[in-house]
């Protein structure tokens, strides 16, 4: 039983890490707390639902589709909403952006209720069956989704290490002035960073849609967990992020089994307060103080 809970938590944790990775890309690159992360998770779920229902039952295409749409959507949101706030500048930018993004999530949630209704929509699982390894039952759908999540995290890692754009984004995150001097234009990079961050949230929503139902408010807690995972882990270490994600996944699966899922969130938020108070740069943070 203990092993079963640990494995469940580990798999859930990988999704937290995927969500958190998107959150931290935006936080690191743009100095912005993306409080609409959960809303983008929900958007990813609905796009998957629409594609599988109306276009093709192929899950890979549905996931790709939701990632691409979310990227474009994030790009446009940055151009229309975040850029004007950024232009006005000042140190209040992060706070104004935060309020703007929270309002955006209100708009998206209620649009979803208007368009799809408040009821839950089911996405059929595309892999059925279980595997039993050493007494631990693993749902294959869950395992496949987790595998794709790990692949996405690896892809992002390679993107940041190897490609021109990835390196430009890292340069921008480390030192804006120096990056600008070396020819990295923030005006071009910021919308891309935001798009990249939110498309990971949408990917998580898309991957989890066959496991949980899709509903307008489904993103609220995954979004908060992304924020908590990033706060606790700190910036600059993908490994730390995955570890923290898994830690919270395991905490959640154990507390949900022995008490209730609310206890899991309560513990997670309390840990976050402790970490912000005593170690603001996070457990694994390498930059910032």
């Amino acid at each position, binding site marked *: 039983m203990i092993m079963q809970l640990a494995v469940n938590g580990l798999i859930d944790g990988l999704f937290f890490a995927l969500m958190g990775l998107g959150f931290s890309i935006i936080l690191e690159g743009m100095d912005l*707390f993306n409080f609409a992360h959960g809303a983008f998770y929900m958007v990813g779920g609905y796009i998957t639902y629409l594609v599988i229902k109306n276009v093709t039952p192929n899950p890979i295409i549905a996931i790709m589709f939701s990632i691409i749409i979310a990227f474009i959507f994030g790009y446009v949101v940055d151009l229309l909403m975040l850029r004007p706030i950024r232009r006005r500048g000042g140190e209040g930018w992060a706070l104004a952006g935060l309020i*703007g993004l929270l309002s955006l999530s209100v708009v998206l949630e*209620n649009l979803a209720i*208007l368009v799809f209704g408040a009821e839950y929509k089911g996405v059929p699982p595309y892999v059925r069956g279980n595997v039993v390894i050493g007494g631990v039952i693993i749902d294959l759908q869950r395992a496949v989704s987790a595998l794709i999540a790990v692949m996405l995290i690896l892809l992002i890692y390679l993107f940041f290490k190897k490609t021109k754009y990835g390196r430009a984004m890292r340069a921008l995150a480390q030192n804006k002035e120096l990056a600008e001097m070396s020819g990295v234009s923030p005006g071009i990079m910021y919308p891309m960073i935001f798009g990249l961050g939110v498309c990971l949230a949408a990917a998580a929503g898309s991957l989890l849609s066959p496991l949980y139902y899709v509903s307008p408010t489904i993103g609220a807690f995954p979004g908060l967990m992304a924020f908590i995972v990033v706060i606790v882990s700190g910036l600059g270490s993908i490994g730390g992020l995955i570890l923290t994600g898994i830690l919270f996944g395991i905490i959640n699966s154990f507390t949900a089994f022995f008490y209730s899922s609310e206890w899991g969130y309560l513990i997670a*938020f309390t840990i976050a307060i402790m970490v*912000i108070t005593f170690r603001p740069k996070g457990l694994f943070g390498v930059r910032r103080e």
Partner: protein
Amino acid sequence: MRSFLSLRDLVIKNWIFIIILLGLLIPLITSDQYILHILILSFILATLGASWDMLTGYGGLFSFGHQAFYAIGGYASAIICINYGISPWLGLLIGGLSALLASLVISYPVLRLRGPYIALVTLAFSLVIYEAITIFRDLTGGPSGLWGIPTFTPIDLGIIKITFEYTNRTSYYYLAYALLIINLIFLKIFVESKYGLRLRVIKESEEVAETLGIDTIKYKLVAVLISAFISGLTGAFYAHYIQLLSPEVAWVSTMLDIVLATMLGGFMTIYGAFAGSLVISFLKEYFRVIGQLRLVIYGLILILIIIATPSGLLKEMIVKILSFKKKVKVKNV
């Protein structure tokens, strides 16, 4: 022409009193309980907004957890009044004090952190409170809500007896209005005082404040405590007015209302939240007919405000109207 100008001068100089008077007259003009109800809710929001404006606008401590103080005040007062039969009038004080105690706990990180980290830690705090309300259902009623909160006991003044009933909300109206006006005046005096001035120095630069010999921790702590006390008091009033509490009061949407009201009315004005909350409360109520679209429009308005005029839409409009005379003067010079 002359008399017209002096009338305007009179209005400009004494606009606070004129607005206070107008507010006092409203229950005499209308006995529509629905309008009174919306006004009471808007007064509650305005009090919260003003206390948030003091802490965030003047103190520079960006709280994103005022809904927690509000909920703590409401729940503490309600639970104590239900279980121990204490008068709800005392409950108001209990609500304020319990929020103050809670703010003492959270002030430890808040006073040491800066900028967005304060927003994060207060947000996490409010989420802890939200989850705690959901978990301890024996005490709080959990997600299904806390029912049967007693309302205010009648006051016997000898000549007249003031009763608090749902069928006639006039007395609730005056109570909410009194709370609002007292808090607005108190907060305005506070931010204009030496204390408020020092708080603004700290907001501009903590280093400068420290070289001037200002005890930054002390001044920030006082601001946090006052703001939390007022929020808790307001929460207690809300609990005894509505007589039903659900965990949603501690949810982020309450904070969004506070931010929207303050931003709409004018940041760093104290009074701004009053104007903003009036607009919002009526918009929210009259948009009910269009159902879910209401919240979509609500969010879009907030986004537009953030993009266009972060210092406050109504404030800029009023300043433009009132500064007409000043502009003429400038031309003469």
